[in-house]
């Protein structure tokens, strides 16, 4: 136990405390000015906005993928299931340059879309694509156990009472999956907020346009503005913690509703 606590304090607690303390060394006005400067606000808008959209896309498509894997049998199903974890296993820098190679101006896909005025790199769209990549496993892996636990008998009961497949889906299946969908969405969202490696290549990092919060923090550090970086980081950290708390909240709420997790 002692070893555990010591290790934990050294590695986690002290560094985190340092962050908040450093941010606190800036006096109130300076702090406020930093986190509300135009460039920073643009970065927040971009980061939160793109993460939100990516999480939404992942929720929809992730649900579709999870449904196929759990409910259907087809050739390559197990391969599909295994590949889902690729973003977990792949280093972010590798994903980053790979995505750039696909969606960049000379990229496999990017170069075909460019003439139509669709910029899939050095643009918010590129960022959304990268964040979708990174968040996909979260939704699928959260939904899978929930889908597997679904009681087939409830659906059969509904069918025997005359419900159409569509009705059964919306009235019975979706409500029981709602907590897991929300949890998956939230996890994907939180992960996207903090993502750096896979995004930073595709984004192009134009201030005010495609600069995500993580990159802004690094820029500030390069400018030796440590307090400024800490301020921005503190805001992001608080947002992440709030999001994580809401995940716990969702799970608690669903447990109350259904009597099980």
């Amino acid at each position, binding site marked *: *136990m002692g070893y*555990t606590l010591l*290790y*934990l304090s050294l590695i*986690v*607690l002290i*560094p*985190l405390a*340092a962050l908040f303390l*450093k941010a606190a060394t800036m006096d109130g006005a300076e702090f406020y000015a930093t986190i509300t400067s135009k460039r920073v606000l643009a970065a927040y808008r971009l980061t939160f906005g793109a993460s939100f959209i990516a999480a939404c896309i992942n929720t929809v*498509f992730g649900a*579709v993928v999870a*449904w*196929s*894997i*759990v*409910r*259907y*049998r087809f050739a*390559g199903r197990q391969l*599909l*299931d*295994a*590949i889902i974890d*690729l973003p*977990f*296993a*792949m*280093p*972010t*820098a*590798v994903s*980053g*340059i*790979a995505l750039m*190679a*696909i969606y960049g101006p000379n990229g*496999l896909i990017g170069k075909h879309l460019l003439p139509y005025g669709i910029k899939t790199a050095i643009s918010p769209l590129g960022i959304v694509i990268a964040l979708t*990549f990174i968040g*996909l496993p979260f939704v699928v892996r959260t939904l*899978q156990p929930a*889908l597997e636990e679904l009681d087939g008998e409830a*659906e059969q009961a509904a069918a025997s009472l005359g419900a159409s*497949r569509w009705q059964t889906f919306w009235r019975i299946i979706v409500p029981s999956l709602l907590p897991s969908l929300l949890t998956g969405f939230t996890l994907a969202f*939180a992960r996207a*907020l*903090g993502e*750096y*490696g896979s995004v930073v290549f595709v984004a192009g990092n134009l201030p005010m346009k495609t600069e995500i919060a*993580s990159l802004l923090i*690094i820029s500030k*550090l390069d400018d030796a503005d*440590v307090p400024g*970086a*800490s301020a921005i*980081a503190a805001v*992001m*950290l608080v947002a*992440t*913690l709030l999001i994580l708390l809401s995940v716990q909240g969702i799970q608690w709420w669903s447990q109350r509703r259904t009597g099980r997790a």
Partner: protein
Amino acid sequence: MSTNTKGIKIGQQDPTWVRFLVISISIAFVALMLVLPLGVVFWEAFRKGVSAYLDSFQDRNAIRAIYMTCLAAGIAVPLNLVFGIAASWAIAKFNFRGKSLLIALIDLPFAISPVISGLVYILVFGMQGWLGKWLEGYGIQVIFAVPGIVLATIFVTFPFVARELIPLMQEQGSEEEWAAISLGANGWQTFWRVTLPNIKWGVLYGVLLCNARAMGEFGAVSVVSSNIRGGTNTLPLHIDALYNDYNSVAAFAMASILALLGVITLIGKTLLERKLQQETSSSLESSTTEESK
């Protein structure tokens, strides 16, 4: 992982066209979002031929980067392994105040952006940081040097082993350990002979993921390293440097090693997950009633 045998009956309740559509969308989406990037790495790496590919490995900086990556992982993984086992042991077998706090703290590095993770280390160990100044007196430099890279790597890969072992050990319960103690075994004997063999697959799984993350970490080490080539660059940082120099073949060549590592990790993960599932279902069997005497 799904092994839902009910799925066959239920799935057939969906109309065929729905099934076809859903499966096609799934495959298309995954192929586009996941498989394509993976393939592109290797395609770009070999674009100028095999010899160009192999040449990138001759570069001294590349070798140094590979070495740094292995060093960081080589230190972080064993340390986190020991910690993970100790923490899971404490959490699963005992009740103590602050247990939920401990569990939440363990999950923390998982949730924080890697850049922020790196930043906090600068704050503590940087030149103006608390410990940084003190250590400088001893001639030890942490940030922008090797120790910083190692520390940042430890931080971000910290939860993996513990997260895997905690539910596993909780599920296994502590009856076997009590049995061993009642038969006269001391704590160490109980751990080695009884606990460890039961969690070995979980440990392997945790180590595998921990290693993959350790070798692939980018954001956190970006912040704490000086990005000086040949100095404190890990492989991902080296890839970044090469790419920014428009040396794309070399960048993708390096990336292909990590991509390969990723694929191996994925395969290992899948196999171990199956192994773990087998173990949990067979231990469930031991509590159900049997027929013959």
